[in-house]
């Protein structure tokens, strides 16, 4: 039986449909990330679960009980906020103790729990410091300890790492996952950082325009995106808008070139499709004599190189992106003519509507 259920949640802000029918079922102790760009409704969903806002329609059920109209102070949800939310007038220990005092726990019990939790988040040495004496990362650790102190039924995290620098972010997200697994606490995590979501979640739900586009394990989301938006949002993806030429043999037409794509088999001829190829699956080779006559080859020119460490990302005219080892990329400088091989078997295929745009336009550099 699911522990946390969001059933048909709707929330409108004036004419804007912030949430348009969200369905989530999460088992006890599971970690779900709500992932999406700004304005996709992920924070709205989290605030509904926390009780800071009420849905226009739908229900929120925790452990079989409908909590939709329960006040936030009665929900037992631990929350970590995006902004630093520690009470400035209280020390780290007093912040963590706050929820325990409200629950009228005994003095000794409180002291022990505060100590244990601050140790758990690695801040046993900073109990008496005020928030302004702590770094951003330390403040978020205290906020996590404070949220955990009340033994919440669900832990809610609203982009808790977005204000931190990159190194602290990676370190802290791993700790959040470690602590979550250690305590077995059901967790809802909101982020716009797909790498973060893929790294620490049991499940990822990609949201766009107030609906969940796709929900699945991180591996499923990466390898089998079910909508063009998810395909582009999770990782980087080459999107080739094509038309099926021959469904029997799996041939498609892309910008005048015929490509062999296994996933196109069984499709109706003339159907518009989107071929999705990960940058690492696109093979580039130097072209010596213009367009190649080999099958599944697209020709172009390298227009940019981005050094990413072990791999280098090459942008090729025609909107293609390919990742290759940095050593090999040195042979293909900007301006070099190249041929790109579209893999026949690795490419995914999604149907496109017969008219209208394939999916919301995204900046490929900043998905």
């Amino acid at each position, binding site marked *: 039986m699911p522990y946390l259920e969001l059933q048909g949640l709707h929330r409108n802000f004036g004419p804007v449909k912030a949430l348009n029918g969200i369905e989530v079922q999460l088992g006890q102790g599971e970690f779900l990330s709500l992932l999406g760009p700004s304005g996709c409704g992920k924070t709205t969903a989290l605030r509904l679960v*926390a*009780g*800071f806002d009420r849905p226009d329609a739908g229900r929120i059920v925790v452990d079989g009980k409908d909590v939709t109209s329960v*006040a*936030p*102070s*009665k*929900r*037992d*949800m*631990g*929350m970590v*906020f995006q*902004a*630093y*939310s*520690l*009470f*400035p*007038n*209280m*020390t780290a220990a007093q912040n963590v103790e*706050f*929820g325990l005092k*409200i*629950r009228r726990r005994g003095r000794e019990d409180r002291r022990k729990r505060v100590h244990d939790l601050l140790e758990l988040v690695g801040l046993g040495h900073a109990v008496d410091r*005020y928030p*302004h004496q702590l770094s*951003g990362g330390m403040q978020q650790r205290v*906020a996590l300890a*404070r*949220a955990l102190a*009340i033994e919440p039924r669900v832990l*809610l995290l609203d982009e808790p790492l977005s*204000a931190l620098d990159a190194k602290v972010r990676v370190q802290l997200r791993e700790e959040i996952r470690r602590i979550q697994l250690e305590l077995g606490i059901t967790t809802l995590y909101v982020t716009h950082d797909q790498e973060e979501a893929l790294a620490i979640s049991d499940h990822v739900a990609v949201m766009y325009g107030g609906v969940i586009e796709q929900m699945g394990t991180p591996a499923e989301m990466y390898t089998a995106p079910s909508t063009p938006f998810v395909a582009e949002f999770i990782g980087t993806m080459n999107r080739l808008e094509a038309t099926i030429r021959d469904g029997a043999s799996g041939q498609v037409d892309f910008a005048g070139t015929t490509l062999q794509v296994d996933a196109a088999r069984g499709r109706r001829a003339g159907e518009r499709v989107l071929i999705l190829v990960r940058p690492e699956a696109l093979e580039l080779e130097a072209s010596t004599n213009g367009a190649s006559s080999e099958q599944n080859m697209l020709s172009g020119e390298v227009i940019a190189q981005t050094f990413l460490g072990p791999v280098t990302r090459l942008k090729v005219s025609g909107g293609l992106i390919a990742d290759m080892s940095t050593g090999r990329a040195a042979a293909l400088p900007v301006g070099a003519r190249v041929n790109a091989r579209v893999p026949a078997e690795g490419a995914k295929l999604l149907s496109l509507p017969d008219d209208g745009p394939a999916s919301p336009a995204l900046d490929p550099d900043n998905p």
Partner: protein
Amino acid sequence: MRLRRPKIAPSAVVWLVLAALYFLVPLVATFLFSIRSIQTNKCCSFAAYTAVIHNGDFWHTLRVSFVLALEVIVISLILFVPTVYWVHLKVPRLRPVIGFLALIPFVVPPIVMVVGLLKVYKGAPEWFYNKPSGILAAAYVILAFPYMFFSLDAGFRSIDVHTLTEASQSLGASWPRTLVRVILPNIRAAALAGSFLALAIVMGEFTIANLAQFHTFPIFIQYIGETDPYQASAVTLVSFGITWLAMSSLLFIGRKRGGPTQVVGAH
């Protein structure tokens, strides 16, 4: 890490001395005047001070004004802290409206206000209409409104009201608890500033008290001023000292509890 105290520029010292003189010269002059002998008109006699201290009206009116000031501060805080909090939290678009309303006490002359108030409350019960703690306190709350509002507004703007409130609520705190334990301690500096100003207003307001025929401290000063100039100077200085003492004690009470008074911005 402690920053080294920056060196003070010579020009700053000049301005500081000028400003200090501007405030100190009248005080010193008043003091020198107050210690002249009433008989010889020469220095130095503390007769004026002795007379003031032994004047029963001095202590009586001082007590009236001081109690009034405390009452005004308490009423203002009870009225305005939750109001400004609510406005910041739920209806921020009302902020400019309240800011505008807060300017009205500056625009309407006290003489107009007191006539209006006396007329409006003519049929009010005795305990309200004829006691300084009633109608006068109400009038002073109106006078203190702009000072209280703008101080509190600045205080609330310096903290993240939304996040602090939501954090407190998610931990199980009720509205009153959130206000008292989380919000109030973090706007204490602002509440104190508003309270000082309210105290200063009540200890110095003359027009309304005079027209409403209450014997407050400023009325006493004015009376003495008409009858004995040396005593008037002495009273002025003594009241000055007492007001400062009251402010210091407010500051002391306000800062007694641990924690930084001023919120340091997120970093």
